[in-house]
């Protein structure tokens, strides 16, 4: 109960950010909200069903490019592009999920990587449609950035709530069961393949929402969001925050983006520090920040 009060208070405080009038802070905050949704959506299949996807950039950029192409090149209205982008991410995740169901662990990571990098190859080479390396510019945001902040926060919070209900439902419980012991879940009469497929689709679709918001925020898309290094971001953020906790990916993203922003102000070598953090998280704090917090509160 107390946790929920703290969370609500923090969210209420962030609603004041647009009133500071600081454009950069506003931009950064929207970016953090979007990346939080990206990480939470990613964690549906990582933290809850134990599958490491190394290709979530496919769903993110699939939606981003879908929106950009439909709105800028085909001249469709922005809301249509927004919905269509998310639909594209859903279709992509259904296809990838269907083709990679049989795989686990490294092989799952590799096949998701393969599909996302294929898309990256297409984006780089199909210049007429995707603009190649230059990407697509001139995507409308549909509203001033002041209101876009509230729009993003609303979308992210609604999506996060749906994901929360999803992973806390019976369905989510079966997913956790698959993570812990797949054979037992199968013996209890559940089709683990079907559960995995649905989880991948839900994860990919909400990643698509994040991708569509991102395009509207940046007003351009470039191939960098299709590259595998963009798939690595939610992995690292989730591990820092703690994959076993619903808010872990959110906390991890917050730390990741703020640390990147602050450290780059002082040194060029922020990757060095990030690398050290990642190494020590894996060696000493495998539950991430939330794991550490949970242990602290349990002790009392």
């Amino acid at each position, binding site marked *: 109960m107390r946790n929920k009060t703290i969370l609500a208070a923090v969210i209420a405080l962030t609603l004041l950010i647009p009133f500071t009038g600081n454009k950069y802070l506003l931009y950064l905050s929207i970016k953090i909200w979007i990346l939080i949704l990206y990480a939470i959506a990613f964690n549906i299949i990582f933290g809850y069903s134990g599958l490491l996807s190394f290709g979530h950039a496919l769903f993110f950029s699939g939606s981003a490019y879908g929106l950009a192409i439909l709105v800028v090149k085909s001249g469709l209205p922005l809301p249509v592009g927004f919905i269509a982008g998310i639909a594209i991410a859903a279709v992509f995740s259904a296809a990838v999920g269907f*083709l990679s169901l049989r795989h686990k662990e490294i092989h799952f990571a590799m096949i998701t*990587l*393969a599909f996302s990098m*294929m898309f990256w190859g297409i984006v780089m080479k199909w210049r007429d449609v995707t603009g190649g390396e230059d990407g697509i510019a001139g995507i409308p945001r549909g509203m001033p950035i002041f209101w876009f902040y509230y729009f993003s926060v609303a979308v992210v919070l609604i999506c996060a709530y749906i994901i929360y209900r999803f992973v806390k439902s019976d369905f989510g419980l079966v997913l956790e069961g698959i993570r812990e012991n797949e054979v037992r879940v199968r013996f209890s009469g559940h089709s683990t393949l079907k559960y995995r497929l649905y989880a991948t689709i839900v994860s990919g679709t909400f990643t698509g929402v994040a991708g569509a918001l991102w395009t509207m925020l940046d007003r351009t898309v470039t191939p960098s969001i299709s590259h595998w290094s963009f798939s690595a971001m939610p992995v*690292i953020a989730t591990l820092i925050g703690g994959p076993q906790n619903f808010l872990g990916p959110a906390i991890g993203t917050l730390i990741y983006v703020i640390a990147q922003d602050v450290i780059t102000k002082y040194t060029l*070598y922020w990757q060095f520090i990030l690398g050290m953090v990642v190494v020590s998280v*894996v*060696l000493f704090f495998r539950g991430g920040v939330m794991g550490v917090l949970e242990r602290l509160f349990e002790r009392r």
Partner: protein
Amino acid sequence: MDPSAIIFQLILGIASAMLYWIVSSGLTFTFGVTRVLNFAHGAFYMLGAYFTLTIFELTQNYIFSLFFGATLVALIGAACERGLISRIYGLPVPFQLTLTFGLVLVFDDLVRIFWGSVPKMMPPQFVGSINVLGRALPIFSVYLIIAGIAIALIMYFLLSKTDWGMEIRAITVDPETAVCSGLNPTFLYATAFMFGSFFAGLGGGLYVPISSAAPGMGEHVIIYAFIVTVIGGLGSIKGAFISALIIGIIESLGALFVPWMTIALPYIALAAVLILRPEGIFGEK
């Protein structure tokens, strides 16, 4: 199309396949023994490139720089294994991948600190060409093919004819029985890692004279090495050799026939193999 052009392109493809093979051989070997898929293998490749370059500037002897550089990389690899990677044996894959990915970030920035962010070049080695079907084939490609085959033979010899190779194979197949029969796992894992890292360094050193050394160069290579190892079957050295050839050849022929999709060809091959034969060409189920 002119058949001589195809054959020529094929030879170039085999030459670049040998580079993939040299790097992947180390990756698949360490995976086979330690069961850790090492992202930092690409960082070792990068270090090999920089070490070779710097030692060459000091000694002006390429072959010496190549081997000395790779040996230094092997020592760094062993240090990483002892200090960090040995602590994550048996953990779930995501943890192994992220820890070694963290090492990549650290090494990338260390290279930036010591050598700067600007790509560094070294003078081309073994300049000259031989005439193949009326086209000039760079002599370096010929040496690359010879080096690749030599490394395959050396690996085969070390693993099948020496005591160390036998012990490595034993601990790969059945770690528990191997340890019970008196083998020292600490020594074997560390030397296996050293051995694997050596080939990463060697690959980097071989690549510098034809291109340049730059921070982050390992990230591109490690993805290719992943593709090669997964297609060949994780842990299979023979598989890595064959699949490196497949990737090198489809890439070079792809550049000839379907230049617009060359960039995606290795990934298409990876997805096709994973869908049709998930364990890879030579992998065990």
